[in-house]
């Protein structure tokens, strides 16, 4: 189910035609069928896992919800006879039952994810210990294939369960509708991680064909393909060369790899999300935005509020807050204040929860130490910048630079460089190599490689660099224009021949300048692997 395969594009076209041709009351049912057929075509065995997660979550959430309803009815009925203490005892009893179903479903959903994604990582680490301290035979690895999108749909179902448990909304009674929420095909391969109360607003509604809505969706899809095929996949050719033999490319090459990856990851991931949101939009379905011009962030905290936003808010709502305000943490905070003093003690719960969130973020991205180190490195930078914030405030008050364009630009570039450097853990997939290559920037002076022709020996020629430059400038201009009004709305205001020429030109560029050449792998969206 690769977004860039011809089969997928044809399937989406067919889905769209049928979606608007059938009676509107059947639209969501058709989408469910189409989602399952497409998912089945990606890997027949995947269906088993998504079906277990869907069924268990559906049943447990319904039970939790019905217990909530029973509780409300009972309390209303016995309002006059129950005193405060009796109400409290009754509520606690219900909560206990609900917790049982919540934990049961979480055990199955997260158990499947952890079992499939992390078993071999755990075996690898156990083997590392076994072989270093004894002569025992290492444990054999399991032959496990990770179902497409398991991290995304598991997080969606966990969010749904917790929200139902917290009585944010009632559980969905219709199994088919719930199955569509979990398995809606455009967002199965790389998210975003939707919330039920957002997606359900438009997912099950009846949608009449609206030319503007459909054309806006198609335009967004085209923009996504431009980013992915013209920019990301082209930059990838050069990046692969640099990563294949790191020792041959130290010094300035590390910096070039940082920049290549910053461009490639952005174009790949945001391009994929554009395609996802665009497909949904053509059917009148609103999927949550996942990016808010992240490369315009002035610090790392802001960056993480604007990059992969649905993942960030998921971790904040379902891990950071529950852990930070748990009874254990509040007690720990009290103790820490007594022992370490008011100032340090009050930071303990926030810092512990932050470390845990970033450890989880790291390991969510991949079952290997480089991702864990990447996550924790982000955490260290965030905590340091948190500690330094009073200093920054003093500096800003003293020198009055905060509103100045040059200072904002400096902060933006600093954040891009910092994030790009941290991301190299993800790129080289080896902590030692990444650290070694990073420091090579300060020990190997080969800056002349930028202009002596060496850059043309990375698999990219002059035309490729020009296309990449054109693409980056275009993305930058679109991002700047977007700040005040959607670019698609702006284009719509132009005379018909001009706007038709713009979209046709973009289509031709995608067709002619897409990197379909040698080494092209149609399945290689970076976030498919998560």
């Amino acid at each position, binding site marked *: 189910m690769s977004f860039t395969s011809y089969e997928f594009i044809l399937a989406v076209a067919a889905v769209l035609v049928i979606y608007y041709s059938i009676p509107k009351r059947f639209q969501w049912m058709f989408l469910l069928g189409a989602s399952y057929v497409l998912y089945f075509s990606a890997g027949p065995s995947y269906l088993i896992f998504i079906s277990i997660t869907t069924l268990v979550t559906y049943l447990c959430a319904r039970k939790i919800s019905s217990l909530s309803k029973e509780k409300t009815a009972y309390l209303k009925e016995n309002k006059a006879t129950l005193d*405060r203490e009796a*109400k*409290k005892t009754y509520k606690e009893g219900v909560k206990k039952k609900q917790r049982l179903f919540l934990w049961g479903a979480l055990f199955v959903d997260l158990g499947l994810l952890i079992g499939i994604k992390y078993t071999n990582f755990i075996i690898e680490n156990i083997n590392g210990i076994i072989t270093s301290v004894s002569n025992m035979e290492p444990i054999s690895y399991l032959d496990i294939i990770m179902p497409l999108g398991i991290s995304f749909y598991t997080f969606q179902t966990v969010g749904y369960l917790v929200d139902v448990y*917290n*009585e*944010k909304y009632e559980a969905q009674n219709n199994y088919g509708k719930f199955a569509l929420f979990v398995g809606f095909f455009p967002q199965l391969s790389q998210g975003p991680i939707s919330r039920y109360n957002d997606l359900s607003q438009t997912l099950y509604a009846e949608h009449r064909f609206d030319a503007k809505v459909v054309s806006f969706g198609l335009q967004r899809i085209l923009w996504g393909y431009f980013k992915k095929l013209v920019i990301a996949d082209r930059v990838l050719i050069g990046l692969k060369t640099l990563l294949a033999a790191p020792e041959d490319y130290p010094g300035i090459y590390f910096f070039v790899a940082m920049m290549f990856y910053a461009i490639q990851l952005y174009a790949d991931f945001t391009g994929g999300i554009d395609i996802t949101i665009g497909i949904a939009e053509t059917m009148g379905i609103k999927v949550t935005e996942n990016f808010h011009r992240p490369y315009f962030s002035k610090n790392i*905290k802001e960056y993480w*509020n604007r990059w992969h936003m649905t993942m960030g808010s998921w971790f*904040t*709502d379902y891990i*950071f*807050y*529950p852990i*930070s*305000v*748990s*009874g254990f943490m*509040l007690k720990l*905070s*009290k103790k820490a204040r007594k022992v370490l003093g008011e100032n340090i003690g*009050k930071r303990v*719960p*926030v810092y512990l*929860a932050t470390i845990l969130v970033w450890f989880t973020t790291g390991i969510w991205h991949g079952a290997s130490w480089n991702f864990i180190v990447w996550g924790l490195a982000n955490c260290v930078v965030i905590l340091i910048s*948190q500690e330094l914030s009073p200093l920054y405030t003093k500096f800003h008050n003293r020198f009055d630079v905060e509103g100045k364009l040059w200072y904002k630009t400096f902060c933006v570039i600093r954040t891009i460089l910092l994030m790009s450097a941290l991301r190299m853990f993800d790129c080289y997939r080896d902590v030692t190599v990444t650290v070694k290559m990073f420091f090579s920037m300060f020990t190997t002076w080969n800056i002349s490689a930028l202009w002596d022709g060496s850059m043309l020996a990375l698999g990219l020629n002059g035309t490729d660099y020009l296309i990449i430059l054109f693409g980056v400038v275009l993305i930058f201009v679109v991002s700047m224009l977007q700040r005040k009004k959607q670019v698609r709305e702006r284009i719509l205001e132009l005379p018909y021949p001009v706007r038709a020429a713009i979209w046709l030109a973009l289509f031709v560029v995608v067709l002619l300048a897409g990197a379909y050449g040698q080494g092209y792998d149609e399945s290689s969206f970076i976030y498919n692997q998560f």
Partner: protein
Amino acid sequence: MNELLEILTDLHPEVDFETEEHLIDSAILDSFDIITIISEIADTFDVVVPAKEIIPENFNSAEALWAMIERLEDGE
């Protein structure tokens, strides 16, 4: 209410908490601030704020925060 205003002002002296109504929507309070406020509320008012109460509507203004504290004090 005065004790709550004191807690908030200690955290962000530059903000007028008596009038500001978009503490979350305008990103004046971040997640670190929210946890600090919840911890202070537990100490000062002996009220535990559960994670499900951490929603913008409860944290957008000092008044909304105070309403939440009173509601939780009543055991609702």
